[in-house]
């Protein structure tokens, strides 16, 4: 072999072979041979929530008044929230349970890392796959929203990249956390954190129902930023706060990926 350039010790060359697409390709092939039911359920879950709560509950509640004074139907209010929640759930499932299993039982990563693939390829590949799935569900859900007349502005189109950004953030952090998990019991903590976030992050009712300190607590949570971002886009309620929401997820992405890569290196190449 000639022309091999010596990388710095522990540099990014040792972590990344620029071949995350091979990991994505593997995941797509595995999905194709798996049963379709898991894939399909990811689409229907938020749709069922929307029908049950948006229509069912919505007929009792009536309209919701937004901070801008605009009045929207309850279904139009919660639909973007449900979209954000399903992006979170999908990303978290793929990056936690799925990764946890492959790491401890499937030995898949051991096999991958014996090749030229580096830990960063694995992390990026798994995350990109999770995002592709998330994007597919989001397209489905946004279509349902369009058919039901719940997209109130053209900016709803931007909800798709927004959902991918949100999913990326959750997947990156989810993988970082999973790399520390050793038992199934520890994995339950993830659910324990996610459920209250789902219920209280202004998904089903405006944040104004809470007292100020609790409002601040909710605003520190990633799901609140996700819900606000997606809702702003589908309802056409844009403001400078959108940049803050986007920034929140950029930080999650960078931090999560950096952390995951370091952990995978410690776990598999020590």
């Amino acid at each position, binding site marked *: *072999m000639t022309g*091999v350039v*010596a*990388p*710095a*010790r522990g540099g990014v*060359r*040792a972590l990344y*072979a620029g*071949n995350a697409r*091979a*990991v994505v*390709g*593997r995941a797509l*092939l*595995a999905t194709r*041979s*798996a049963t379709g039911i898991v894939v399909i359920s990811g689409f229907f879950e938020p749709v069922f929530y929307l029908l049950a709560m948006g229509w069912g509950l919505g007929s009792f509640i009536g309209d919701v008044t937004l901070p801008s004074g605009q009045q929207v139907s309850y279904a139009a209010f919660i639909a973007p929230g449900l979209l954000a929640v399903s992006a979170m759930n999908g990303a978290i499932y793929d990056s936690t349970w799925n990764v946890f299993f492959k790491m401890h039982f*499937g*030995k*898949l990563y*051991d*096999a*991958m*890392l*014996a*090749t*030229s*693939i*580096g830990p960063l390829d694995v992390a990026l590949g798994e995350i990109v796959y999770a995002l592709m799935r998330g994007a597919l569900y989001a397209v489905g859900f946004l279509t349902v929203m369009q058919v039901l007349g719940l997209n109130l502005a053209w900016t709803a189109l931007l909800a798709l990249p927004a959902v991918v950004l949100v999913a990326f953030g959750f997947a990156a952090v989810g993988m970082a956390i999973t790399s520390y998990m050793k038992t199934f019991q520890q994995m339950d903590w993830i659910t324990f954190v996610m459920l209250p976030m789902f219920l209280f992050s202004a998904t089903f009712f405006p944040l104004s129902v809470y007292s100020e300190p609790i409002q601040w607590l909710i605003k520190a949570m990633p799901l609140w930023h996700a819900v606000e971002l997606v809702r702003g886009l589908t309802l056409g309620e844009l403001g400078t706060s959108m940049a803050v929401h986007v920034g929140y997820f950029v930080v999650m992405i960078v931090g999560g990926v950096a952390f995951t890569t370091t952990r995978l290196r410690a776990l*598999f*190449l*020590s």
Partner: protein
Amino acid sequence: MVAPVISARGLRKTFGEFVAVDGIDFEVPPGESFGLLGPNGAGKSTTMRMVGAVSQRTAGELRVLGLDPDTHGPEIRSQLGVVPQDDNLDTELKVRDNLIVYGRYFGISRALCAQRADELLGFAQLEEKAKARVDDLSGGMKRRLTIARALINEPRILMLDEPTTGLDPQARHVLWDRLFRLKERGTTLVLTTHYMDEAEQLCDRLVVVDHGRIMAEGSPSALIRQYSTREVCELRFGSERNADAAARLEGLADRVETLPDRVLLYTDDGEGLLERVARLGLHPTTSLVRRSSLEDVFLRLTGRSLVE
């Protein structure tokens, strides 16, 4: 002399207080079939992981294909084929897809992966299983698939960690045959084993490892010549009487080893020795003369048998 593909000097690996590999030196020239022979826990797998650039050494020098695994992990791994001790095939993929996807991890084009996958399925005698699920394969088939997978990047060194452990005798012979073919083609093989017969069949040269140290080094025949006699008499007197009999046999052979179930007499003339045993008035329930093996070398070097 040709530059070695692997060279280790004072190679050491510790996990906290535990010393897994305790300063070993060895070199592997290209095209050689090199073995690490030793009992479980001798540090063989740890050595393999360091050579395979998936585990960093604690101390010492290590060069694989002229490169330092600490800094050139990806370059080294791209030229290695690794067969780990436990099969880690992708159970979510079909047999042929396992080969193709693995090739893709090396950045090899899909078309080339497909072509090599078909060749390797032939080599591994798995053509008919191409579309089967991994879980439906027998142990021997999984092993052959793992070896085929390790060859997808046409590696310069094929590393096999305990390649036939857990396989039935027939499956082992099929596997040895495949590995022998690779050896004939000039592939450099590095393998660990705790089976004597495997080491004798496959290795041009080997090191005997125990407690993370190298006890001896040489070709199987040279090691046997150096550390054992040409022949061995195995006598069984019954577990109660082996020790007594051994005491009376002392001096009759070059060396006497007493194991719980038998007495081993090391000599260059086994048949002659059996006659002298009979003249002493000792009548073993069974007696057997065989050629010395690496098992005897290991026993001599460590005072223990390899497989217990």
